[in-house]
């Protein structure tokens, strides 16, 4: 039997006889409409979903109550409305607690999140230095003071502009090591740059 063509009366009759297939058909046909109806009333997707399941459970358990009086959709929506009203009546939407805004001001924190020295160096950092002549000379000076393995990584990444994977292969070390050396370099340079 083709489900799509069946009337609501027929489907309901079968549902009363515990025909799950008929229920599936009805559910597929009306679930969106019921969900939208509930959403308009309760304005919360999760609640609407929960209530929708309840609505169709009522159809399953009390389908005979329709009796073909009035359009099926209206009956269905009335069940939905009643369930929504019950929800709105019973659920504790009204709270008794007094207003106590928990927010602190956006910048009231005692210790600033960003240390000053980082702000200073970000404003005249080594990255910018790479692009500038005089600063570059100073930077080279700092690089030369680094341990050999770190210096090597610096040269390959910044001077030879190699990818980390390539540097790892060239040096025969894992990429993680390259990254950690790079991290060390950046950190140290930034610190010394600040000092310089």
């Amino acid at each position, binding site marked *: 039997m083709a489900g799509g063509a069946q009337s609501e009366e027929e489907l309901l009759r079968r549902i009363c006889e515990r025909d*799950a297939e008929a*229920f*599936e058909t009805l*559910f597929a046909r009306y679930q969106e409409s019921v969900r939208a109806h509930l959403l*308009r*009333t309760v*304005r919360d997707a999760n609640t609407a979903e*929960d209530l929708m*399941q309840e609505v*169709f*459970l009522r159809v*399953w358990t009390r389908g005979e109550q329709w009796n073909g009086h009035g359009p099926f959709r209206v009956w269905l*929506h009335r069940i939905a*409305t009643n369930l929504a*009203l019950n929800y*709105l*009546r*019973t*659920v504790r*939407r*009204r*709270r008794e607690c*007094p*207003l*106590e*805004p*928990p*927010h602190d*001001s*956006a*910048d*009231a924190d*005692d*210790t*600033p*999140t*960003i*240390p*000053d*020295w*980082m*702000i*200073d160096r*970000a*404003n*005249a950092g080594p990255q910018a230095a790479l692009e*500038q002549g*005089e*600063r570059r000379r*100073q930077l080279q000076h700092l690089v030369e*003071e680094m*341990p050999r393995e770190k210096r090597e990584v610096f040269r390959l990444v910044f001077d030879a502009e190699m990818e980390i994977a390539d540097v790892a292969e060239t040096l025969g070390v894992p990429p*993680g090591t390259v990254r*950690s050396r790079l*991290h060390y370099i950046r*950190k140290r340079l*930034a*610190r*010394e740059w600040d000092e*310089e």
Partner: protein
Amino acid sequence: MPTSAPWHRASFERFLTVSLPQLLASRLPLGGYGVTRTGETTCCIELSLGTGESEVTLTFDDLPMPDVEGVFWRAGKPYVVLPTASCDDLDLAEIRCVGEQIAADIAARLGEAPDNLPWDETLARGWLPLDAWIGGFLERSAQALDTTNSLCRRSYLRRLSLTNRETLFTPGHYGRTCPIETPENPNIGRVLAVARGATIRDGRLVIEDTRPAATLGLCAALIPFLEHDEPCRLTMGANMMRQWLTPPDPEPALVQTGFEPDDAAHWCGRNLITAFVPWGLDSFEDAILLSETCARRFAYPQPIQPGDKLSNRHGAKGVVSRIVPDAEMPHLPDGTAVDLVYDCMGLYSRLTFGQVREALMGRIAQHEGVPAIVPPFAAPSAEELRERLGRDGLPEDGLEQLTEGREGLPLERRATVGVVYWGRLHHTAQRGYFASVRPGGCQRQGELEGYALRDTGATANLREHFHMRASERRDAVTLAERVANGEALVSPSPSPRCAELIRRLAAAGIEATPTAEGLTFDFAPPPGETLTFAQPIPYPWLPERTLTEVGMLPDCLAEFRAVQEANARLSRLQQTQAPDTLREKAVAELETRARRYLNALVPPSLLKLQARPMFSGRAVVTPGTGLNYDQVGIPEEMAWTLFGPLLQREGVEAEVIASRSAEATLTLDALMARSWVLVHRAPVIEPTGFLAFHPVRSAGQVIRLHPLANHSLNADFDGDILAIFLPLTAEAQQEAGERLSLAGHLRRDPGLLGNFLPLHSARVGIALLARTPEGREEIRQLAGVDSPLPEAPLHRAGLLALAQEVLQEQGAEAAIAMLHRLTLRGFAVAKRSGLSLSPFLGSGFPRPHPPQGEDAETWEIYTEELIERLQKHDVTDELEPFLTVVRAVARANYPILQKFVGAYGVVEDVAGRRVAIRHALQDGMTLEEMHTLCVGARHGIARAAIELENLSRTLRKSHLPTGYGVLSRAMRARHPGIVFARAASARQTDPLTDLDSSLFAV
């Protein structure tokens, strides 16, 4: 000029009288609606719904409403809801003030009522819980109004929140919001200050006044000579002014901008005779030296003490290092003692030249007896200042001959001295102080701290922090007693963190049992209160297995309740033999919620080290005078607190300790002399983040730090707080000395030597000393090397080479000792030098003719040329002190000096174009130039925030465990539960042999 924020109240009234009734009428059968004011900050709404028999009337009494200023009051505390901008193009953005925000919030919650509902009061209140909605909105959206001082309060009310911040600056910002004021934290550019000349009207931020000062916020407009400052520091200056404490006897600034309100309470600062000279350790790293007379003027709300923070309007900030008798302060030729010393080293690299000009103008105003008015972007030129100095009979170069104390020798150079307006901040030493040997409030230690200790091999200390001394242990409360009683300090496994993991896994049906072999995993029914499922579901972490019940843990109550609800529905559906469609949905929902609950029980963060170690303290850090390089000064009170139980262990009676008798003090000092404490500063991003020192008692509530330690801890003296930890076991004590002392770190990594070189003025001092043969000989002797120093400037590289020589030949301890001697000597030499920052810096510097056009490249070449000229500049003029500092590689550099005296140079503007800032700091910027510089400054602060985040992320990545034990695998996993479930399924045992697992668990 508007200084209040009328938009808050206007918006709320629109909500009450227009938007709310409209909204209600569109969704509900609204019969009547009326609002009455019931007080200054409350109102009452009465409305009716439905008709005929089902008509119901609702009354909402005592609804909150803002006062005329826009402030909501609750329990005597003020709150404000910031207006929000819909996008960062502020010229186009829709601005929603409190009323519009509440209306939108209610619109999202209010359901549409079908016709002919049988209304009754219960239903109506359930449908429209207006009081709860408004209350809830304010709870989520209102911020406590910061009322530290009147400026703070007023400026807070003029804030704007940019919820969808995509860029930090758009052209629409100009004139509408202050380019300077914004928080220096991740909220940068998200919280903005409405410009003085702008207002919020009809949902838009509109400009009413285009004069230069009107483009600034309330705070920035109060900074005289701001066009001579780098904007990044101005941001700090403006933010700190809002933290100034209000004195009982307000003192108007001698230099004003003319935009101050006519209200005595506005004035929170003090006009202080300020000398911008290095003063040894007392002025090192931003520390501030105060005279006793000056301290008396800052005695609100309690007497000022070392560690309390001061700032001026230009963003200079520091904590009081010492308060000394006036006779010990630098003196002017007429015998006047200086009030405050702020080291010029802090000015060189931060480009805050404006305060030097303010000092000069303050001097003039003081002499003339009338406050000077210096509006933003209208500061007097160098020529005008010179002329006024001359007219008033003051030194025309703005410099004074200071003496080192009342009876002391004159300094070697004449220095900048003037009157600067300084305020005292609410960051005090008292607020920063804490020490305890018991649980409650101890310093938090996380994974980053764990990495630092692990990287240095300080595993005994790591175990103490996260295990033995953790406040989270069940036996934590008895630790101090156990120490005092001399009990052996044992810490039964598992660690508190591991115990927490075991407890949570149990609720998920996994039993982890510590055994002799390690930690064994198996499945077991959850203990305690459980929830049995209506039907078994696949185990979320191991689908081939089923889950029939979970334990209830209050830690994840919300997630547990969600599981309960889903289970109840499924149960009901089963009872009614509901069709599969509904049942499947319910089962799927139960599965989803069960997975969420389990993941909430065992999140990845549970596998990270975390504890609050007892026997710890914290305090504001200040410079440590008179310390050896292996010593740290800790507050007297902290010393007694931390060492009290150890003294008892040594047999000193509790009453004797409480009396702090001379005898007890001797015992304490002796005990401390052979003990190590760890000093650390958050965030720890390198292994040297923990340093071990022998503690010595120090007066007041501050930690006194040896200058060799600043660099390693990234600490300066502008309010930084350091933590102190006392290792308790002999093993941890020994390890602290061997691995975490300065010498210990250097032994582990000789590459750290550069971290311990003399800094700032100490380095300049050494460079100055090395100029003469006698000085070089003295340095040689201090360094303890044989060969004479070459007749050449001694800068950073030379110092490093010298230190390396000592390190190689005599070892780490000798190298540190030698750097200690050189540093102290360097400070003394620099103090004598009278180095300063001339208010007429660069006036004698012959600038080549500037380019005519705007072409960025031409200007870049021009600035390069200026730098070269400065490098060759060899005339003893007002540039000499600055050049000395640059040449010693002690602070700043030629490009920075160039910004002071040449042309600021090429920067990116708001559209990312490279544009030339033609003026130097000494000239003062134009309004447009300042706006352009503000773009870069804001980006700089944001970059720092990103960098900090990246650093932590990289550290975490590079420290991921490498082992293959269960715990190590779980530490690497995004869903550790899966690892544990597999381990339980295979009844695996983690032998806890790899470092990460063993540090975590035992």
